[in-house]
């Protein structure tokens, strides 16, 4: 309840500052639209050219893109500032300012990080997913809709876990660009069906960096795909995987803060 009130207060503050920097806000929204719109079209054109990828039609592949973008936008909406701004917070000393307040720093940073810019991602992603289901003539039953919502929640938690985990080295002022590249680079893989890659990539994206659960596995469920990898139950596993990973990421982040308090670096 405390953090909910705090969150509302920060939303009010962010909206007020949007009013005072209107130009920059709209420029940002347009830029985001253009860059993600370009990604959308690139995927679309590529799939159109191939007609199908390993039995996946263009709309089906585009759904992967939509689910990836939607869940990423949800995660980034809450966690982007926490993850990307942490280095600044440490350097400027604002992290110390948060640690002298009677608040959980993780929740405080989520509240503080309200970022309207992600509404453009979310609307683009929803638009993409609607196009796909329509184009494929699939109408989701209420149960499937619930499954879709839970899968997207799980996928968002996977994205969030990745954002949070890769930000921990920054708390210690180690510029770990390597982990960023790992994260942002791997994200591109999952815009295409996992079944087109070789075994090694499939193993990595399922068991090591389980991004496959963001779009490929759950999409199999909604599209009635049967090109199962490893085990036919994996399409249902997105939410548990997301919860598990996020829990680990949160513990790791807390460990990062504890070590910061121990070393002060």
């Amino acid at each position, binding site marked *: 309840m*405390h953090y909910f*009130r*705090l969150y509302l*207060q*920060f939303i009010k*503050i962010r909206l*007020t*500052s949007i009013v*005072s920097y209107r130009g920059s806000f709209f420029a940002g929204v347009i830029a985001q639209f253009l860059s993600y719109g370009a990604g959308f079209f690139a995927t679309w054109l590529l799939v159109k050219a191939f007609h199908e990828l390993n039995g996946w039609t263009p709309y089906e592949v585009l759904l992967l893109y939509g689910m990836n973008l939607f869940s990423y936008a949800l995660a980034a909406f809450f966690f982007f500032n926490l993850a990307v701004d942490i280095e600044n917070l440490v350097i*400027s*000393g*604002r992290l*110390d*300012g948060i*640690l*002298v*307040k*009677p*608040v*959980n720093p993780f929740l*405080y940073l989520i509240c503080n990080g309200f970022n309207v810019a992600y509404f453009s991602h979310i609307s683009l992603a929803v638009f993409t997913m609607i196009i796909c289901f329509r184009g494929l003539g699939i109408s989701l039953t209420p149960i499937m809709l619930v499954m879709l919502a839970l899968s997207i929640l799980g996928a968002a938690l996977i994205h969030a876990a990745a954002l949070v985990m890769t930000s921990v080295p920054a708390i210690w002022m180690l510029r770990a660009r390597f982990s960023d590249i790992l994260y942002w680079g791997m994200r591109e893989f999952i815009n295409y069906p996992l079944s087109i890659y070789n075994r090694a990539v499939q193993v990595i994206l399922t068991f090591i960096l389980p991004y496959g659960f963001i779009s490929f596995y759950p999409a199999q469920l909604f599209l009635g795909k049967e090109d199962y990898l490893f085990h036919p139950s994996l399409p249902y596993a997105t939410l548990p995987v997301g919860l598990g990973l996020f829990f680990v990421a949160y513990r790791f982040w807390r460990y990062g803060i504890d070590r910061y*308090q*121990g*070393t*002060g*670096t």
Partner: protein
Amino acid sequence: MSYINVENVVKEFKVVRREKGLINALKSLFHREYDIVTAVDHISFTIDKGELVGYIGPNGAGKSTTIKMLSGILVPTAGRITVDGVIPHQNRKENARRIGVVFGQRSSLEWDLPMEETFDLFQKIYRIDDRMYKRNVEFYVELFAMQSFLKRPVRQLSLGQKMRAEIAVALLHDPEILYLDEPTIGLDVVAKNHIRQFIKRINSEKKITLMLTTHDMDDIEQICDRIIMIDQGKLLYDGFLQNFKEKYGGEYTITVDFAYAEEGREVDPRLQLVSIEGQRKVYVAHRSVIETTEALRYFIDNFDVSHLNIREADIEDVVRNAYVKG
């Protein structure tokens, strides 16, 4: 048991050793060597409720590190700290509720927000009940004369106004202790004086235990009852301001530009010559031996002087003195 207890506290930092040159840079990719820097070195002191303590020392003495340990941000490497019976870093949130902290060199305010709304935000952060909130906002707006800039975004405030705002916000939840880290840094003389008056009033009217770090000798003389002086992490002095001044203060430097080379002429032995640079000579004296006015008159009356400059001892001089006198 005192209110704030610091027993044999040590804080060490591990710093990556950087050596010059490409080869060394490549080496450090695989193997890093660390230097251990001791920022706080076996410091002990106690502070009672309601005291106003100046925690002083030159830059890099370990003042901020101590404040960070007291406020629960940093964990001591060794030793023990308790604040009102609580170990700050172990009960960080509980400790945070009863302290206010202001870091002079960084802001805790939202840049685009006017103070009116910043107060609202801090009410939510500290869960301050409405009655206390209203009473404190009124009290501090009045005390810090903030009425004129309440509605302006923080980014448009002057440095002095910003510092008043920082202190007001840190006091909103009625903390029992206020830590001020360099509260007058960068301010002009008038603004410094204001802040000093406010600090004294908070201590006397609100009975808040106050610890401030500074390296400004005027801050020390004008506000503090008690001084704790550290240098290179070690405690050099802990006692009343009066004794401190008698022991280490009172030294001043006079720089004299003589109109002619005054070769061979004897100067009053109470003025100790420390350097000569052409026609410019620098003397050091002590107030207990010769007052500044007397020294000035002495030069003007007895010599043809084109320029005179007097400088009071600053914290570096005082620390140097403390080493000399032990």
